[in-house]
């Protein structure tokens, strides 16, 4: 059984132990979201619409699956999410479809457009929370926050602790030098601001572009060639071609790792975003990097 599932079962058990309906705490549940908005619920949310795949995953991980009454078209994990009603897009949400699900809490991806949407939902009397997960610390914080809002505070705390410990693990010595290429024209790589950079570091690798502050940045091809990473990591959906199509272009052959065909393909479902399955992702990445280190 995969680690994620066992946690899910544990969460369910915790929920069963607490009984259905609102657990203990009397009084309002108050949290501050990523936009700095203070959101208060009188009781744990019974009907939640999640408008971001990462948040849907987190809700199920908390054991709040049964409380989820709406998700986006792109929410594909965990598989149980498929049974939940699809309310459309998350980046530009269809508020009518969302409201039709009669939620008492809506979770939105934090963006300027969604701040407007949150205000509109507030006018409809629906509590809206804006969250954005760029790094694993965000996931830990959100796990606790959502745990409180959905009445699974203990599960949220538990997940938060696991993630904190993963992130706080002493860094093993840097082994394989990695460049994460997100796009080929113009060449775009992952920098220190991204959770992928975190994962690489935790897995014992070194991101050659760790000196770049943003999560991703465009760089010159000659910089990639000059920094000479041992391996090129790419995010791919299932069925992706290795080596990638752009590796056949003549200018990319100037990069040694491309010439030698040293590619690391990371499945998008595990590596596509920061998630509660971070320990799994780190373990998988460590395994792949170890394979690269041995000739």
């Amino acid at each position: 059984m995969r680690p994620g599932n066992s946690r899910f079962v544990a969460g369910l058990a915790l929920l069963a132990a607490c009984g259905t309906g609102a657990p203990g705490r009397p009084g309002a549940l108050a949290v501050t979201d990523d936009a700095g908005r203070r959101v208060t619920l009188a009781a744990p949310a019974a009907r939640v619409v999640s408008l971001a795949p990462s948040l849907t995953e987190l809700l199920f991980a908390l054991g709040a699956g049964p409380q989820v009454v709406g998700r986006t078209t792109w929410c594909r994990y965990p598989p149980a999410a498929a049974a939940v009603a699809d309310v459309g897009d998350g980046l530009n949400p269809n508020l009518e479809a969302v409201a039709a699900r009669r939620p008492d809490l809506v979770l939105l991806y934090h963006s300027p457009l969604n701040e407007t949407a949150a205000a509109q939902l507030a006018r409809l009397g629906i509590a809206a929370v804006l969250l954005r997960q760029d790094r694993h610390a965000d996931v830990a914080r959100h796990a606790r926050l959502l745990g409180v809002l959905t009445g699974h505070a203990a599960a949220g705390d538990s997940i938060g602790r696991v993630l904190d410990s993963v992130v706080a693990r002493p860094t093993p010595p840097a082994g394989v030098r990695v460049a994460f290429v997100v796009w080929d024209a113009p060449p775009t790589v992952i920098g220190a601001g991204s959770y992928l950079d975190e994962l690489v570091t935790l897995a014992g690798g070194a991101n050659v572009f760790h000196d770049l502050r943003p999560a991703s940045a465009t760089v010159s091809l000659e910089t990639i060639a000059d920094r000479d990473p041992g391996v090129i990591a790419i995010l791919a959906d299932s069925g992706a071609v290795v080596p990638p199509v752009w590796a056949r272009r003549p200018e990319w052959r100037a990069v040694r790792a491309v010439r030698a065909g040293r590619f690391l393909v990371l499945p998008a479902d595990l590596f596509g975003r920061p998630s509660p399955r971070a320990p799994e992702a780190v373990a998988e990445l460590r395994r792949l990097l170890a394979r690269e280190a041995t000739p």
Partner: protein
Amino acid sequence: MKWVVLGLAAAGALGAAVVLGPAAIPFAELGTSPIVRDLRLPRALLAFLVGGALATAGTGLQGLLRNPLADPFLLGLSGGAGLGAVLAIALGWGGPWGLPVAAFAGAVGAMVLVYRLGLVGGGALDPRTMLLAGVAVGAFAAAVTTAIVSLAEASQLRNAFLWLWGGLSGASWQTLAVLAAYVPVPLAVLAAAARPLDLLALGEEPARYLGADVERVKRRVYLAASLLTAAAVAVSGVIGFVGLLVPHLARLVWGHRHRALLPAAFLGGGTLLTLADTLARTVVAPRELPVGIVTALVGVPVFALLLRRWGAP
């Protein structure tokens, strides 16, 4: 003399493009470095060729449309290229050359469409109709492109816009060879149209009385300029500003006669884009700026300077 200065500027720009870059390569190693040989040198030459092609196309179009605001991308070519690129990504076409080929095909499609729309009764190309058709075709293509992007899974297609903003990251000896083989023909067509373009500036009727085969010239100039632009977009995305501004810069110094203006625009455009690309690669190293932004930031002060010195009458 003006030409000497321009020649030196061009040589200087090419030299700087080879010597400078985000990868610190000692001067002594320039000759042997694979980065210089495989990346910087072809990129410098490609930047020169693309800049020259765009500036020459812009000069031709400004003469054809009798409009100093004409620019190679005014006639819908960038919209067509963008649509082609997005379709290529969305449908997963064609391997490593899929994007450039699709962008080229999209640009040529827009060219043909604007040509057909621009033909008024009796087979004569009307510049004003062409301008309107170009704007309309461009807007339509852009709308379809946006629709595709908004409906499909975001990430891949958002990256298509990054490509479209323009950049010479795809430069290689192969790309350079293809462009270098392709470019001389449309350039020659424009060069042969130099005198007729001078005449066309007076208006179509006076041009005809002075011996210009007006319809033939319009057709040829439009097709040559569009084909140059389509190739430039296929290779390096939409790099704005070069095709609009360099002809005016050249006119400030060389006057209006196209026999001097076209070669001056070619060299000037090449120099500008090569310089801009070097700056794009080095100013925020290791990061890289989109070259279209740099051409604007470099071009405008140079233009202002020349305007004060030589003045527009």
